């Protein structure tokens, strides 16, 4: 989202931009999200506009499935070494889908965090931009199968493609490498490793999404049934010296959003949110009020100590200390969502980082980190930050 924003904002000033993305599609973590807080609207709506801005703007050159190996040089004269992953499917691809129909191999769908499967040759998702198929080299049997090549009418598939290096020049570099969830399995007391129905908040985005693995339904990973009681554990591994000492700024609003999405889909379900502080910033306060007014959503101030399973293994048991009532509570749930935070993606680049692995604001002149690789922030703040960096990047060449 931030990279795309920076690219279109710069290009629309009239400058040339090269946009490099590791994945085969643009949109990062945001395109995987069910909706945004506080409006509960789909991210694809704004991204569609941004993709249109890219499609029609010849000043933007976009490389997907490409990583950056090295950044050298100085402001106004950077040399950036790119590594293009093997181009198994070229731009002749029309996204007709014939290849997927004949492909005999399956792979876990990373877009759905492995909760669904695709064929080894696949369209990353229905809104994918560029609208082009991808091939998962780990699961493809290549020439020994060759079925997709035979069925492709457009000469779009080359199974023997190799990766290629390319060095480009740039006057400035914006780094918008984004974030990932920290490993939830590392949080020992919250049962992510032990119980299928303990999931993370980003996994929940896919499960509740009508275009996700369950289609129109929210389904438990364990048995494919619809949960009736759902618990959210805020600050799961955040604001905690053992894991992430900081707050990730978005998880409170995200869980409120999830709670409302559940209620919209299943008005009779029961949702509990265990929190330390409800950090719903600025004018999203009325969004919090909407949640507070919902009788089926309970907000409990208390840190969750432990998640276990009921004796008959049919339910999860959330143990927490209710700080307002000063008592210990045990609460049953069918599905537990851990509000895990934001950690910066790590790349082996020669850039300065701060204590928590975030990319520092202070870099060599001409290098501008933006959004969640720099510090945790929500989408609107990321867009703002990316737009600000767009200005910095054009200051040098004027």
């Amino acid at each position, binding site marked *: *989202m931030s990279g795309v924003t920076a690219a*279109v*904002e710069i290009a*629309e*000033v*009239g400058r040339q931009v090269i946009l490099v993305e590791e994945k085969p599609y643009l949109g990062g973590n945001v395109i995987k999200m069910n909706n*945004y807080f506080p409006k509960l*609207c*789909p*991210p*694809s*709506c704004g*991204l*569609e*506009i*941004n993709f*249109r801005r890219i499609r029609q*703007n*010849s000043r933007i050159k976009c490389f997907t499935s490409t990583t950056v190996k090295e950044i050298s040089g100085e402001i106004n004269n950077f040399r950036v070494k790119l590594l293009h992953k093997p181009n198994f499917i070229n731009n*002749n691809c*029309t996204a*007709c*889908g014939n290849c997927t129909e004949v492909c005999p191999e399956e792979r876990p769908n990373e877009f759905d965090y492995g909760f669904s499967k695709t064929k080894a040759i696949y369209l990353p998702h*229905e*809104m994918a931009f560029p609208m082009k198929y991808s091939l998962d080299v780990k699961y493809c049997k290549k020439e020994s199968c060759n079925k997709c090549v035979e069925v492709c*009418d*457009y*000469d779009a598939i080359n199974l023997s493609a190799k990766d290629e290096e390319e060095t480009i020049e740039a006057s400035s570099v914006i780094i918008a490498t984004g974030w990932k969830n920290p490993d939830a399995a590392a949080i020992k007391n919250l049962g992510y490793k032990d119980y299928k129905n303990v999931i993370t908040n980003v996994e929940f985005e896919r499960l509740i999404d*009508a275009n996700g693995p369950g289609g129109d339904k929210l389904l438990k990973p364990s048995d494919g049934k619809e949960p009736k009681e759902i618990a959210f554990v805020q600050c799961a591994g955040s604001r905690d010296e053992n894991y992430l*000492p*900081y*707050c*990730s*700024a978005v998880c409170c609003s995200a869980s409120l959003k999830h709670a409302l999405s559940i209620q919209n889909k299943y008005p009779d379900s029961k949702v509990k949110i265990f929190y330390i*502080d*409800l*950090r719903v*910033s*600025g*004018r999203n*306060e*009325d969004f919090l*009020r909407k949640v507070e007014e919902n009788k089926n959503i309970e907000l409990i*101030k208390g840190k969750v100590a432990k998640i276990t399973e009921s004796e008959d293994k049919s339910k999860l048991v959330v143990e927490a200390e209710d700080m307002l009532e*000063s008592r210990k509570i045990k609460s049953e749930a069918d599905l537990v969502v851990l509000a895990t935070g934001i950690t910066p993606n790590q790349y082996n680049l020669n850039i300065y980082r*701060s204590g*928590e692995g975030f990319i520092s*604001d202070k870099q060599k002149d001409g290098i501008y980190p933006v959004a969640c690789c720099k510090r*945790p922030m929500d989408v*609107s703040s990321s*867009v*703002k*930050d990316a*737009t*600000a*960096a*767009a*200005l910095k990047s*054009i*200051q040098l060449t004027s």
Partner: protein
Amino acid sequence: MDKKLAVYICSGCGIGDSLNVDKLLQLSSDEQKVTVCRKHKALCSVDGYNTILKDIETEKFHGLAIAACSPRVKTEVFDFPKNIIAERINLREQVVWCSEPGDEDTQMLAEDYLRMGIAKIKNISAIKPYIADSISSDILVIGGGITGITAAIEGAKAGYNIYLVEKEKELGGKLNSFYKQYPANEPFNILIDPIISDRIKEINSYKNIKVYTSTTIKEISGQPGNFDVILLNGKEVKIQVGSIVTSMGWEPYDANKLSHLGYGKYENVVTNIEFETLIKSNPDIQLPKNILFIQCAGSRDKDHLPYCSDYCCSTTLKHAKYIRELNPESSVFVIYKDIRTPGLSEEFYKEVQKDNQVFFTKGTVSDITPENNQLKVTVKETLLGDDISVKVDMIVLATGMTPAGTEDMNLTYRLGKGLPKLKYNFSDSHFICFPYETRRTGIYAAGAVRAPMDVASCLEDASGAMLKAIQCIEATKRGESVHPRAGDKTYPELYMDRCTDCKRCTEECPFGTYDETEKGTPLVNPSRCRRCGICLGSCPERVISFSDYSINSVSAMIKAVEIPDEFEEKPRILVFVCENDAYPALDMAGSKGLKYSPYVRIIPVRCLGSVNKVWISDALSCGYDGILQIGCKPGDDYQCHFIHGSELTQTRGENIQETLTTMMLEPERIKTEFIEITDYYRIPDIINSYVETIEDIGPNPFKDM
């Protein structure tokens, strides 16, 4: 004039398997008199593209239609010289992928889309952009606080001339009265000196920044590229700028309304800003021993400010920290609802928590009474359950931010002097993904006038808004629209002979594009226009058109469809879809292989608000049985990219129902549905159930008339 045209039909991606392409070619040449008609097995291939390009060189035609996949894909491939009108006809996603292959109705659908596409080309003209004679590249920044100063510096660094206007004698705004700032980055264990004096000094080093202090704005007229501004500072100063950043700042919430928290009643109850100013003016002041902070004083409170101001928690932490540094004997008490130090600011919170003489208590202040020169504060709803009370020497109320009014910009716009306000009077965009999009093109709000925000956030906001201001100038120079139809070079052209001065266009334009002459005639400012076409939809006299989108072009598409007679039992439903969200949803439905009735004829529109009543009556009088409109969600959480386009559809709906009544037609003949872009799975149901409704009420009696 008969235009020489070409039609290219792609048979790839299943189109050739599902449709009789030769019959379509025959229709193009025989019925539609198209000069060049070709088919190709993959038009998007190099060979396909070259075939078209060669024809363009040899055949010299005016326009061409590419009947293949959706215009949303392969856009970069089908790029032709701009003097040629190129129209994409969506035979893949919206015909063969969503209908039964080989079926008679599928073929009829494709035939009609060809007719519609050709009709459109015949009725639109090549785009000539509007570019004003002299466009100013200078930028006006209104408000000389930290946001305005930063915007000015950042804009100057990019090489633009900046006028910075401040109504007070000095630059600096609120930050002038700050003693310290809290850290936004590492290290979090030290407070920082206010950055404002350095910034003010820095301003002086830029030759391309002209500062006007003690200056107000008498008036701003014009449009992006040519804003005429009259400044007042004793005398009138006239300047011309291309775009504007408004950083008019904020005021603390009026503490006089907080008498329940002792303000105005007891001398030692002050606001956070008063406290800051006090320390700034006299850092050596003898501070009292026990100081209590009340968070959310008049915030997150339905009787006062319903929202959170984002900066008060960290500000109180800052106060606590320097109080303890200035007077190690002191104790600080903080009564809060939630401590909101999001992100890395948590580190700052932890830093202050380390101090065992700073006491945090979650609760609500229920009573304040004077007792022996002190104030006794009672707190209920604490974490421990019991009420507690504490005697203190001073109370500081953490009051929130209210946005400054922007009416002092004195825009001469017909729709008002300031920026339209959204929630809680902030001049924000309401868009999560496009935070800078105000409703006055070329004028960008930054800082606390847009949303409550702290200094660090204002710095980013200033740069972002300045980028948008620069971008607007550059786009205007190219004759292009800014967001969301960025790059669009069409603009509203008015055929004034027919205008009756009804003023609908001036009132309904969400962006204030239209002013009025003294006689009350609409006066269009093309560079203010965002090209949504809402004015086109509003005009009862068909005055307004865009070169590629007009009453005539859409009417021609509507009329191009062959309407079967009533005995064939093949109803025809006209569907207007918003091109931003509903159209992609239809594409996705197709690519997922979802089938729906082939009786629909889809016309994408720039916004549902651009649908003109004329199109509806045209459709009904030429025999369509029903009209379905699919657009974006209106209401508080609206998703319409043009703010109230889809809402207008509802208000205009009543008017349209009257038309139906006068035509003696059933109200069901027109229906509006709102969907989100990801709701593609709802498409078959929305369309099929509407077709069923129409089949139930029977054919349009105007058929065959």
